[in-house]
């Protein structure tokens, strides 16, 4: 038993070391998930006009929200929003907005033409 334990220890150490080696460095992490700013037009359908969706977004995701333009009527809400954060968080935030029923387009609106 004792011999077995002795043999197992270095093997575990080596395995741990190997794991440590493959762990990405902070630099690699930053490269894989860089900081980005998305400039978006949000379109709120009538049922969401009175809801504090931008506030909810900032509570749920570590992103900086910056309203740059807005036009809200009784029928539709249009908000030009800058979202600043790590790329993954911005992506998740956009996906959440869409699930919530908000249409999210780039500031250019329609890039795809006929």
């Amino acid at each position, binding site marked *: 038993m004792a011999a077995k334990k002795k043999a197992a220890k270095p093997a575990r150490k080596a395995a741990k070391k190997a794991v440590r080696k493959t762990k990405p460095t902070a630099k690699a992490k930053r490269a894989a998930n860089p900081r980005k700013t998305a400039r978006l037009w949000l379109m709120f359908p009538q049922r969401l006009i009175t809801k504090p969706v931008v506030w909810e977004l900032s509570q749920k995701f570590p992103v900086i929200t910056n309203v740059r333009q807005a036009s809200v009527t009784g029928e539709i809400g249009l908000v030009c929003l800058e979202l600043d954060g790590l790329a993954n968080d911005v992506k998740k935030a956009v996906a959440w907005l869409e699930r919530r029923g908000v249409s999210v*387009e780039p500031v250019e609106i*329609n890039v795809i033409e006929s």
Partner: protein
Amino acid sequence: MSKKSGFMKALKCRECGREYPLEATHVCEFDFGPLEVAYDYDKIKKSLTKDALAKRPQTMWRFRELLPVAEEPTVGTGVGYTPLVKADRLAKWLGVREAWVKNDAVNYPTLSFKDRVVSVALSRARELGFDTVACASTGNLANSVAANAASAGLDSFVFIPADLEEGKILNSLIYGARVVGIRGHYDEVNRLCAEIAGKYGWAFVNVNMRPYYAEGSKSMAFEIAEQLNWKLPQHTVAPMASGSLLTKIHKGYQELIKLGLAKDTKPVVHGAQATGCSPISAAYKDGKDFFKPVKPDTIAKSLAIGTPADGFYALKVMKETGGASDDVSDDEIRDAMKALAECEGIFTETAGGVTVGTAKKLVASGKIPAEDSVVLCVTGNGLKTLDAVQGHVGKPDEIKPSLREFEELIEPDLKVKTK
């Protein structure tokens, strides 16, 4: 990169008027309003005269002072000056005194009006030092970018939704463009394309080159005016996807007035949409100056933009000029395509059907008075949307190689004719 600016002064925000250098940029950093090219009209007035025009070749570049290039154009130098056809038989079908068809279905080289905007964007891209151009498109724009880039020796990337029909992809692949299909729903593809446009140092014709690109549409207005012997048309009907073409036709007419090349006869500009994608027309009918985005469902795929970027400005132009907007169903689009083909021998794509069909509605409702004259902007070729009319234009008769059978076949027609 050329330091020259030609007849351009700056890029100017359409919302706040802030000016920016003449670079590859498209939105105002302050309010994200779209940027537009501002010109030195005093300088243009001295150079663009009717005498000077008489000596220039018949392409859209004869109006080059009013197009956003600093030097002589280098891409698409043969584009434009398409026929303006007097359409008497179509006028009868429409119920109007006089009709003209501006036929960009035969524009060079890719049979759509997009060659105008693309040749401007690519010529300017070259001046700004780009060697790679790109676009996100589902049809005519992709074809035009691929073809014009190929002829200019520029590398091109074309981004498309991955589920696009094979025929439309072939029309870009043939020119050697790098075509990239993107899986995902429309908004995702749209956002990714905007991101790519921002990240890579390419000339994305409908993103960072948009202020230059959009100006190419004005050439349609210049040509119409010159072909009408410098008389501006009473009414012009233009199809609306993003709404950009309509606003640029109006800008083109106003520039000719400003330069003294045409008299201000208050030209009216009307907008046409397909009922299956009619956010601008719906806003017009509701008397609103904003539109509600829609999910497109129409055979007029080249006009299927549910969130039109220039919708607000198109509504403004129609209001200012006394114009109107209407929309037509898929069946009305096909009927109008057939009418244009049967009356004038012009086979247009579905967008042309939208223009012609809407014009008929505008005449019927009195928005275009029956005693007036109208120019219809036909922007693409019917050969590109054959599937839209497949099964709707009848079938050929078939007979054995027998004279008797042929005579039996045509007998009813002959009887009708001799009556």
